[in-house]
């Protein structure tokens, strides 16, 4: 360390810089405090339910406000399954479109396409919900679900009556809604990869597809996975469109045609009419579980994105 000049300069930090630093620090503290306050509220508000039901709350699948029996398994299941459907559809689609646009498409096409995908992200959730109810769900009921049942009916996921609204509809709408996030993240990753990797791959005799694998997918692996997990984080907590499309039934059903319920949708549906204080506490505890889950998922994504070049 060079001591002299640095120490000297430190004294001369401008007053404006100092103020700005204080301001930033205060802002950061405030955000952390806000996060902690939120966690505290959820724990405090959910405490009666935590105390009364213990671990049963997470594993029991019976949710009955009238009998004051609260098991969150169906809504946890609904959240995980609808998000899984969304990721399975959105991830390959967004990654491959971003890959194509950055590795081979002309810059002009890339710009136009990116613009429209960004627009998708700007549409409010409730509009997706409306479209889902009036267009997507009827189409699922009349065409997609019968087709799936005919060709893949041997799988338990595609059995049972066709409702339209249900787990499949919620998963699909979530997929559409998280495509922009994953796409934006992948675009960012691909854009930041120097062209020299592409050239090195081509110079080694890679075909176009091999070049994409080496110089984009493999080189950007961490960012891509991180982006997918961020998309998952978004899907887990998405509320409005899912509430409108999932059918709102607090039961676990293997069939994706059946109505279900997610953590977010059960809160949105029942909070206004929650009669007993234990019902309210149970809903807040659901919120706490969702809060923890999304924080964990987002933290994981960020750790992966920032971690050292893993093999």
């Amino acid at each position, binding site marked *: 360390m060079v001591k002299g000049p640095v120490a000297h300069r430190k004294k001369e930090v401008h007053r404006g810089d100092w103020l700005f630093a204080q301001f930033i620090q205060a802002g950061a503290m405030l955000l952390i405090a806000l996060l902690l306050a939120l966690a505290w509220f959820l724990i405090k508000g959910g405490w009666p339910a935590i105390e009364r039901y213990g671990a049963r709350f997470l594993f029991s699948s019976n949710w009955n406000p009238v009998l004051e029996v609260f098991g969150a398994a169906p809504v946890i299941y609904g959240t995980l399954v609808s998000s899984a459907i969304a990721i399975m559809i959105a991830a390959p689609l967004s990654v491959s479109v971003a890959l194509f646009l950055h590795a081979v498409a*002309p*810059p002009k096409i890339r710009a136009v396409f990116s613009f429209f995908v960004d627009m998708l992200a700007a549409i409010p959730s409730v509009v997706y919900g409306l479209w889902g109810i009036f267009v997507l769900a009827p189409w699922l009921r009349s065409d997609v679900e019968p087709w799936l049942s005919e060709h893949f009916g041997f799988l338990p996921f595609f059995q049972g009556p066709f409702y339209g609204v249900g787990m499949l509809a919620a998963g699909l709408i979530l997929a559409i809604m998280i495509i922009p996030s994953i796409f934006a993240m992948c675009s960012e990753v691909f854009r930041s990869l*120097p062209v*020299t*990797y*592409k*050239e*090195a*791959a*081509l*110079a*080694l*005799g*890679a*075909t176009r597809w*091999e070049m994409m694998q*080496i*110089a984009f997918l*493999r*080189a*950007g*692996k*961490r960012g891509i996975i991180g982006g997918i997990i961020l998309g998952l984080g978004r899907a887990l907590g998405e509320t409005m469109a899912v509430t409108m499309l999932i059918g709102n039934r607090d039961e676990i059903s293997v069939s994706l045609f059946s109505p279900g319920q997610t953590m977010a949708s059960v809160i949105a549906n029942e909070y206004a009419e929650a009669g007993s204080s234990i019902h309210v506490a149970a809903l807040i505890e659901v919120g706490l579980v969702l809060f923890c889950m999304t924080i964990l998922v987002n933290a994981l994504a960020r750790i992966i994105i920032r971690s*050292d*070049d*893993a*093999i």
Partner: protein
Amino acid sequence: MSILHAKNIHAYFGTNHIVKGISLETEPHQVTAIIGPSGCGKSTFIRCLNRLHEETPGARAEGSVIIDGENIYGERVDPVSIRRKVGMVFQKPNPFPGMSIFDNVIIGLRLTGEKNKEVLASVAEESLKDAALWDEVKDKLKTPGTSLSGGQQQRLCIARALAVEPKILLMDEPTSALDPIATSKIEDLLSKLKKKVGIIIVTHNMQQAARISDTTAFALMGELIESGPTSSIFTAPRMQQTEKYITGRFG
């Protein structure tokens, strides 16, 4: 017989005519240096020798390059197959991120479909030895290639290019991003490598060209001014522009 014969190469970026009819012939077991001021089209020219130039949007090239008796600009020639015969080392070391040292070396061989573990391991060892890197990395082949120092990364890139046994190795200012010690390691390496593979090296460092090359070509504003044995280019250039450049009265 020459191993590479470029005839009348023209290269364009859009409507910008950058390389204006350069011809160059290289002999086996020789290092050919291309020197010239920055921006004169050296990089553009050697990127025509493995058909990499045309990968830049809007770029195109004309002329013919005979490698191994085949014109790589022939009508039905697949650039992919050409690039397997021509290795390239870039200005900035660019080992692939997300790949171990080992994977970096054998990636080219993997692309040819080689799956035999023993073959891959022995080629990796041989290539790393050829690139004078084996002793430094043999105990950490599984660590990321990007974790090496700049000079080591560049030798890794040389090993990566050598692993597919190219006929000729193109190097575009391979030491310009390196410190003097790493640079001299690579210069020493080249004099050994040329026994195995023909080398064309672009450099704007004239001392480097004088030290390591057998033939030197001088380019200026997209044209080849003269080429010949390195000793005569540096001691008795035929053209006035060459003399001006090597005596430092130019660019």
